[in-house]
């Protein structure tokens, strides 16, 4: 049996309301189509590495695994603070897992976090490592005035993967990957470029649905077998449409659909959603998790909660506690904090 041993998240304290961004650009109601009320904004002193460390410390503290027994750390992000120099070594040192481990950064737009978990699963299953830590973390950037500015949020989620003391078994995973250039950022550029509506049907929907269907087929499961479903959530609307297309009851995705409140946290988005589900799920519940990363690909997982989850409950702040602790910024402070002015 392989699965989740511990999990933790970090969501920055700052928020900006979609209507405040709309006010600046004369785009009243512009965010309505995205289903985003507000989004998280990292503090001046936060980046993908600090978010990853906070989430990883929470994950390790929750399950009590000795960090020296974590022999692999994979950090997925599209906003690593260095172009060259790993975020994973910062995390490894800060959680106390150094030096006897392997560590590497991953990048696949919004899905590198789930791929990090797959890597941990492979290494644990093969017996190469005892525990692995898979992290999704991002402080994503949207060009001022672009639709992405409403959604590009910040957050991190970390999962300790292992073969014992499991709180949720990963009973299967599969991926669906093609070369679909719907969103990218060239080296040295501050902001990403994207294909507008092209990011929808041929990219997000095609990959998310294909991976989810393939997983169900592989495991012999039907949509009705899942108690919860979490999909990548670039906005508040897409996951609802996916649920509809897969014939999953929309009530099952509510607990893990957080983009309306914290924006799209990119590599962390589906993983924070999963953490939110684990905060409330009962032993025996089955969860469908499907990520999506532009470029493009999806990783799909079927996860079954074990009895042990009850022992760990309440040991950390819940995802909704993080969401509830907030301080609003106006657009001026937001621009300063995100260093969106060249002169900053």
């Amino acid at each position, binding site marked *: 049996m392989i699965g989740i041993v511990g999990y933790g998240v970090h969501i920055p304290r700052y928020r900006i309301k979609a209507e405040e961004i709309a006010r600046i650009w004369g785009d009243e109601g512009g965010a309505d189509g995205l289903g985003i009320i507000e989004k998280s904004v990292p*503090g001046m002193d936060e980046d993908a590495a600090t978010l990853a*460390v906070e989430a990883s410390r929470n994950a390790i503290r929750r399950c009590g695994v000795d960090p020296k027994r974590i022999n692999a750390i994979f950090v997925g992000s599209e906003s690593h603070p260095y172009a060259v120099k790993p975020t994973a070594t910062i995390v490894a040192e800060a959680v106390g897992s150094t030096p006897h481990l392997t560590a590497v950064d991953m990048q696949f737009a919004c899905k590198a976090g789930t791929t990090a978990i797959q890597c941990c699963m492979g290494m644990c299953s093969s017996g190469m490592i005892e525990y692995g830590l898979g992290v999704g973390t991002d402080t994503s950037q949207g060009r001022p005035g672009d639709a992405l500015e409403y959604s590009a949020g910040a957050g991190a989620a970390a999962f300790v993967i292992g073969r014992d003391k499991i709180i949720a078994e990963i009973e299967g995973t599969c991926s669906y990957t093609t070369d679909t250039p719907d969103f990218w950022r060239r080296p040295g550029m501050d902001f990403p470029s994207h294909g507008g509506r092209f990011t929808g049907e041929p990219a997000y929907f095609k990959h998310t649905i294909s991976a989810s269907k393939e997983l169900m087929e592989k495991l012999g499961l039907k949509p009705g077998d899942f108690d919860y479903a979490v999909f990548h959530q670039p906005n508040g609307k897409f996951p609802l449409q996916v649920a509809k297309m897969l014939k999953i009851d929309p009530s099952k995705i509510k607990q893990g659909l957080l983009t309306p409140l914290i924006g799209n946290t990119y590599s962390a988005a589906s993983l924070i959603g999963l953490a939110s589900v684990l905060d409330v799920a009962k032993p025996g519940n089955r969860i469908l998790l499907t990520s999506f990363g532009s470029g493009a690909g999806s990783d799909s997982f079927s996860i079954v909660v074990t009895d042990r989850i009850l022992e760990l409950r309440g040991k950390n702040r819940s995802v909704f506690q993080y969401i509830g602790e907030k301080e609003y910024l106006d657009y001026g402070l937001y621009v300063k904090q995100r*260093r969106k002015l060249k002169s900053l």
Partner: protein
Amino acid sequence: MSPANLGLPLTWRRIPERYGLIGSECENCKTNYFPVRKMCPKCRRKGKMREVKFSGKGKVYSYTVIYSPPTGFELDAPYAMGIIELAEGPKLTAQIVDSDPKDVKIGTPVEMIFRKIQEDGYEGLIHYGFKFKVVR
């Protein structure tokens, strides 16, 4: 001219202390020190030092809000700083962030968090380490 530019090895050497609150305990007099000390200033040769990891829990011993920041901290200002008394005894100086400055008082409970301390410009090293936040 940022103090961090004193050098790469200097900041690298401090990573365990800055990331993980690693300090020292003198096994002879049971005094805790932060940062690491190789010699107990009380016991000197009689002292026996061992590494300890502090919990990151503490309280505010004194505090200020900095409005005139030094070079390298311009974007952070205004920011709160405190002398923090760790639960295990030693005191240290750190920024207090993610907190309403009105909540920062002498005696306020705080806990360690992991943040960027400063950067050597846009091309240089990013220095990470502990800051503290008010426990809610």
